[in-house]
């Protein structure tokens, strides 16, 4: 954030606008949903970081004496296993807590890969001569014309099912969105006076790309990053559910759902809680994304 505010002003004497982050927070705070989403997200982040300390049991240790124990408020449940156990006698709460780690790993890795790749390609497309631009955008059109989950599924099938390959596949699938956004933003910035004057002063291409133009294109990209964070979690969970993501006994939420599918009518809790965890995480990120968009998009800013 701090880079964004300072890099726009190149001369040290120009007064920097008072506290961009403060201003951002003021707009962000107006959206109550976004603030709730933010706190839930932070809570999940803490759970993910301190998972081994919080979780009452080891996520993969099996207790054959206590399989399919219902959650504590139901008959037969006990406070030892707060949310019950799965068919192999593993504590569901502990698995969920450890699963948070995988979801955040997935979200961050995918967003980092997709965003860096997409921003670079988009910048190149924006600055490149017409023919190269056309080729890049056609390739992106091709990727976008294949339904994302199908493309990811085929990629994973060929690379071999694993969490890492699932992340790579989803990153490839999400990347064209960044390319399009960055290119569009670059195109509108390029015609503006400050870019022209930077060119006149003699700024070289890399400086123009990364220091002059890129910081001013970041607002839509940040919003997209929030959206694709939640998309990545959803898609990797879907791949896990289809058996093409993380492999058992990894306590990844989608994989947990896949393992428990045959028990849906006998033990509702093995199905309900992992999905609820996915929903709450994705919902909190999307709430935050909406708040980010309202706070960063000047068109929608209330004057």
């Amino acid at each position, binding site marked *: 954030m701090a880079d964004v505010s300072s890099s726009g002003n190149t001369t040290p004497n120009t007064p920097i606008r008072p506290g961009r982050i403060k201003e951002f927070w003021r707009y962000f705070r107006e959206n109550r*949903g976004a603030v709730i989403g933010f706190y839930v997200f932070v809570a999940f982040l803490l759970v993910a970081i301190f998972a081994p300390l919080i979780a009452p049991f080891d996520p993969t240790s099996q207790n054959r004496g206590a399989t399919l124990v219902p959650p504590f408020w139901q008959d037969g449940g006990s406070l030892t296993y707060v949310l019950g156990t799965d068919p192999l006698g593993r504590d569901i709460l502990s698995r969920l807590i450890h699963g948070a780690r995988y979801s955040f790993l997935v979200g961050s890795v995918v967003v980092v890969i997709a965003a860096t790749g997409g921003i670079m390609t988009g910048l190149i497309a924006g600055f490149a001569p017409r023919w190269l631009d056309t080729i890049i955008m*056609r*390739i992106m*059109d*091709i*990727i*976008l*014309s*294949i*339904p*994302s*989950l*199908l*493309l990811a*599924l*085929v*990629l994973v*099938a*060929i*690379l*071999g099912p694993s969490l890492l390959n699932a992340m790579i596949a989803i990153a490839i699938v999400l990347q064209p969105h960044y390319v399009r956004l960055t290119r569009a933003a670059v195109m509108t910035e390029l015609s503006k006076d400050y870019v022209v004057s930077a060119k006149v002063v003699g700024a070289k291409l890399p400086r123009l790309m990364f220091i002059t133009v890129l910081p001013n294109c970041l607002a839509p990209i940040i919003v997209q990053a929030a959206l694709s964070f*939640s998309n990545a979690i*959803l898609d990797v*969970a*879907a791949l896990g*559910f*289809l*058996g*093409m993501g993380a492999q058992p006994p990894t306590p990844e939420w*989608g994989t947990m*759902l896949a393992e428990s*599918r045959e028990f*849906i*009518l006998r033990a*509702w809790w093995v*199905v*309900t809680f*992992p*999905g*609820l965890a*996915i*929903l709450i995480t*994705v*919902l909190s990120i*999307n*709430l935050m994304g*909406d708040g980010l968009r309202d706070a960063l998009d000047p068109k929608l800013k209330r004057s």
Partner: protein
Amino acid sequence: MLRYILSRLLTFIPTFIGVCIISFAFIRVLPGDPIIVMAGERGVSDERYQELVEQFGFDRPVVVQFWDFFTGVLQGDLGTSYVTKRPVWDEFFSLFPATLELSLVAIILAIALGIPAGVIAAVNRGKFFDRALMSTALVGYSMPIFWWALLLIIVFSGNLGWPPVSDLIDLLYYFEAETGFMLIDSLLSGQEGACKSAVRHLILPSFVLATVPLAVIARQTRSAMLEVLGEDYIRTARAKGLAPARVNGVHALRNAMIPVITVIGLSVGTLLAGAILTETIFSWPGIGKWMVDSIFRRDYPVVQGGLLMVALFVMVVNLIVDLLYGLINPKIRKR
């Protein structure tokens, strides 16, 4: 307008060739020898390996292989499935109506519920209805639909014992497929209860599949309506004393529809991706389940051909949406 159509058609050709290259390249460029993979853990003897290489034509130059594949595609030849030994083209078109039917019902459901929800929310901006509808829409938008499907199965089929959760229709009924659409076929068959059974089988899958597009359409309708409601001509319409229902329903909604149509067009990809999960969960014999099964069986011609056909379908729908868009909104034609 003609120029717009022509230029749009011209960009279609390179994209089509690109999709052909991608679906062709997947099996050959990415790591992993398809023959070894197909053989699985049992492995394959050297002689048999050579035989298979020749049978699939892997020993010829890649360019020649691609040319054969590409000319085959243009003639409707996508190869034959390793497993069923039937042409991929025939398999695709025998399963496609089921997916199309499911997706059409889902998108109609999404439009029929999503647009009114968005309009109601926009008109009541900031009030209770707006908040309730938009919170629901955000939950729907964030929903992992594979879990949503399982939940609905638990609640409706498990506890209430209500709708069936797999296949197109009860096995009781049998009739010739006239159109391939189960709803129409069951009506045409004239058998008592057949159509009712088909509807009952369709309810849960189509509702699950409609969830995400429904939320997206509702959100888009609301924001488009809000933008339009701030325009001068709306104030004029109100000032000259038109009934609010007429202002909102006719003046505003008509102009708010343009971005909504785009979103509906874009949701075709979402629908097909959702169909993969929905069909797998509900054992719906359509393209999605077929693709997933083929991926697990390493049936590469089917994966390659299916990928190409699905991409082609999305491209054609997008093309039609673009052309419609040009028809509705003359501004876009000039570009």
